[in-house]
């Protein structure tokens, strides 16, 4: 018969051995630093070009770099890979780097030739003829021709998603045609002065490659799915841009690699590899920055995290002014805010300085209907400043004076943006000083969008950030104040002002830039005097970045005021030897 005590001892011995083995394996795992299974040395070629831009200062290197230049940037999400689908920040950055466009923006908002060497416009502004440069190669090796531009345009407009809205209202596909291999004629339905910005969002795809991956049947008739499934799968890209898609980890990250045959320039120490990480979790971002495993953060970090990261050695804060504006959109049709005097009183009573100093110290004060970074911006001669006495005097002129308690004002803030509540509470306190009762209500974005579709369900005030599509004032004016955006989240004012509509349309159809600018400014003055909104912030994007070993042009203000171009990776410079110094 088996001795229980010896069995127990045996069991204990076995358990101890197992624990020691597991502990040993664990120690090995913890202390092992796996060596890289891939090593890269990149040789960069000098590519002759006649284009000079204000963001490029030195020619490309021809030497082989011993250490790989790696740039990692975090975003709110992993990009959509199809140029006809993505229009969020991450997707736009991806498209800017992997695809080429006909034109390229400068930091002053104007555009210069890119894939198109030059273009001419007919006198009536309807026919835009683009002449393409020769020798531009796709990542597949094929040469880019006018047929690819034509295909990309038709594809974008037919699919109708992403940035199609910039082209669909204007481009007449029936009349647009390829003249020859390097010439395309884009015909418009109506004159549109800022049309030259629209090609900034026409990302040119390799038509042969995409056509070979079209699945049929599909929602686009003879074009099947237009290659959408294949492009979104992340197998490879169909671009010609300075970077190529190297790896797509769905839900996690996208990795890009430099394109050796790119026709354009790179900064001397431009990254060889770029990782776009899809996370904004503050603790994670802070950990990665401190471990030097992230070079530039996203723009969604809370201020506390930004401040904490700024104290890390070698890390600085980049403040990039973007053409977005934060409005308190006032309903001009609901009592009491349907009264001009009430709206003016509110604008005079609001504490703009406190909104910046105490809530968002990195933002800039907005003075008018459009941000100051836009071409055609008009600065008011007398910007609105807080003046409680003047506010009360203005309120006394209103038809609601003496009955204000019967008309409480409902103020909505977007639940997904917590700091907006503080702006709402500040507004409430300010309005109480002049006798206006305000209810501050938290609303999920979905509810806001749905409620703003009807006048009855729209609140008196809602606070929203609005971005522009192109760097002219006309973009913001038409996206905010034209009647066509009534019933959308872009306008709670319900202006329905036909005179204003006509002024905006007239400005947008003006071909001459200087005349157009003058008309924009007239529109802005007109809007300003209606007091339809309270202009709070011009958006300044704040990011932490590894200033010790990353040269980030946007941090110095050298950035086109258009979404995505802040991260034109070929102009960002990375110094891995300096990173190695920090890591000791």
């Amino acid at each position, binding site marked *: 018969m088996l001795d229980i005590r010896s069995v127990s001892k045996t069991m204990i011995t076995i358990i101890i051995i197992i624990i020691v083995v597991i502990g040993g394996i664990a120690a090995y795992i913890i202390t092992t630093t*796996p060596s890289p299974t891939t090593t890269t040395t990149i040789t960069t070629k000098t590519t002759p070009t006649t284009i000079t831009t204000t963001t490029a200062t030195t020619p490309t290197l021809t030497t082989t770099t011993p250490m790989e230049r790696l740039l990692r940037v975090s975003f709110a999400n992993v990009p959509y890979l199809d140029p006809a689908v993505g229009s969020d920040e991450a997707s736009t950055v991806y498209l800017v780097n992997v695809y080429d466009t006909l034109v390229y923006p400068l930091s002053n908002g104007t555009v210069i030739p890119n894939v198109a060497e030059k273009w001419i416009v007919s006198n009536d502004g309807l026919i835009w003829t683009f002449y393409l440069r020769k020798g531009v190669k796709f990542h597949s090796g094929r040469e880019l021709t006018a047929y690819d531009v034509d295909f990309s345009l038709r594809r974008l407009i037919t699919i109708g998603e992403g940035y199609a809205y910039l082209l669909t209202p204007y481009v007449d596909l029936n009349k647009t045609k390829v003249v020859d291999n390097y010439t395309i004629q884009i015909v418009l339905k109506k004159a549109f002065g800022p049309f030259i910005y629209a090609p900034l969002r026409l990302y040119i795809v390799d038509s042969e490659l995409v056509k070979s991956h079209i699945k049929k049947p599909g929602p686009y008739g003879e074009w099947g799915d237009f290659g959408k499934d294949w492009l979104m799968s992340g197998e490879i890209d169909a671009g010609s841009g300075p970077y190529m898609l190297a790896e797509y980890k769905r839900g996690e990250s996208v990795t890009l690699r430099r394109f050796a045959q790119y026709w354009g320039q790179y900064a001397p120490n431009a990254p060889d590899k770029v990782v776009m990480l899809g996370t904004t979790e503050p603790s994670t971002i802070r950990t990665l920055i401190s471990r030097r495993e992230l070079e530039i953060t996203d723009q969604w970090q809370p201020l506390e995290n930004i401040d904490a990261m700024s104290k890390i050695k070698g890390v600085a804060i980049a403040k990039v002014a973007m053409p977005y504006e934060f409005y308190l959109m006032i309903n001009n049709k609901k009592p009491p805010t349907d009264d001009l005097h009430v709206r003016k009183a509110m604008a005079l009573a609001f504490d703009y300085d406190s909104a910046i100093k105490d809530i968002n110290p990195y933002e800039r004060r907005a003075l008018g209907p459009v941000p100051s970074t836009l071409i055609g911006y008009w600065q008011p001669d007398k910007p609105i400043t807080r003046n409680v006495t003047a506010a009360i005097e203005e309120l006394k002129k209103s038809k609601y004076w003496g009955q204000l308690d019967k008309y409480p004002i409902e103020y909505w803030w977007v639940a997904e943006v917590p700091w907006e509540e503080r702006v709402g509470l500040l507004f409430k306190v300010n309005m109480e000083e002049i006798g206006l009762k305000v209810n501050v209500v938290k609303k999920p974005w979905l509810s806001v969008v749905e409620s703003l579709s009807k006048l009855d369900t729209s609140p008196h005030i809602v606070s929203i950030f609005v971005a522009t599509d192109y760097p002219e004032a006309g973009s913001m004016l038409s996206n905010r104040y034209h009647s066509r955006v009534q019933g959308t989240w872009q306008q709670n004012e319900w202006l329905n002002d036909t005179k204003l509509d006509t002024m905006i349309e007239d400005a947008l159809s003006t071909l001459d830039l200087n005349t157009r600018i003058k008309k924009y400014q007239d529109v802005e003055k007109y809007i300003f005097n209606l007091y339809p909104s309270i202009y709070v912030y011009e958006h300044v994007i704040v990011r932490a970045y590894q200033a010790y070993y990353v040269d980030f042009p946007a941090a110095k203000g050298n950035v086109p005021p258009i979404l995505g171009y802040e991260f034109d990776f070929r102009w960002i410079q990375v110094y891995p030897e300096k990173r190695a110094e920090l890591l000791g």
Partner: protein
Amino acid sequence: MIKIRNILNNILLRRVLYSILVLIGLSMLIFTLARLLPGDPARLALGPRAPEEVVQKYREMLHLDKPIYIQYFYWLNDVFHLSLGQSLVTFRDVSDDIAEFLPATIELILLAGIILVIGAFILGVISGRKPGSIVDNFMRMFAYIGISIPAFVWAIIFQLIFAYWFNIFPAVGRISDNITPPPRITGLMTVDSMLSGNILAFIDSIKHLILPALALAIGPIAQDARILRANLVENIGKDYVLNLKSHGISERIIYFKYALKPSMIPVITVMGLDIASLIGNAFLVEVIFNWPGLSRYGITAMLRKDLNAIVGVTLVVGVIFIIANLIVDLIIYSLDPRIKYRER
């Protein structure tokens, strides 16, 4: 008639039949609830500036212009064709998304489950062995802390200590950027690494798994350890144990053989539910560690009103719960056959 009775007498078969009914009911419920949420999913997916005709096309594609029961019929039809409909966020079939993201969560849950089982048993047994001792009090304190702190807070704490301060474990992802990932066979990084013989990838993927799995497992470990400890203490005080002691059987054998087995039954039930519920708790942990799993995909779907993805993820979670319950029941039947016969 006798054959049908025999089928129904088969517990496993009965469970499967009930499960199918549960899943159908669940799908109807979540299908309806998702469509009651405010917001136009087509407009949300395409953005505010997409032309109305494109948005309308999407609505027609999703059958949103039809009555809800017709929409459900279309969805059910898709399910029979092994499709869960198109996701409005990823623009591809939800079943493809689930196939992509589920293995990452399964891998996380498996390791968390292993840690949970081992940890709960060790701590429960140690506590129950000497109730009222310093060790027991220490374990009680640990249990309170473990239960009261949510998984995502543990995730941040572990990331802070082990990835930020001491730089022992990686902070994000499933595998390091400088490691060649293994070819996708099962979708489980560790298993695929082993199958392809990529030891470096295996070690690296284990390192990436440890912190998130630990964060998920701590709370349930604390809870289940306390339940086991309570059951052990109760069973140790029973008459049959006294009877065994009077026969001279050693305390160690009484404890591990005669007291532990009946004490495990309620714990195993709770453990099964805990492991299944890890999939729901995993969301914030997956966000913190940038883990591309199903929980994160599911919450994104809910926030973006991705109708098909919401239903798809809910069904997958339902199936996981059902399987977990089934496994738990089978284990319990083997531990205590009386339960099986009672059910018959």
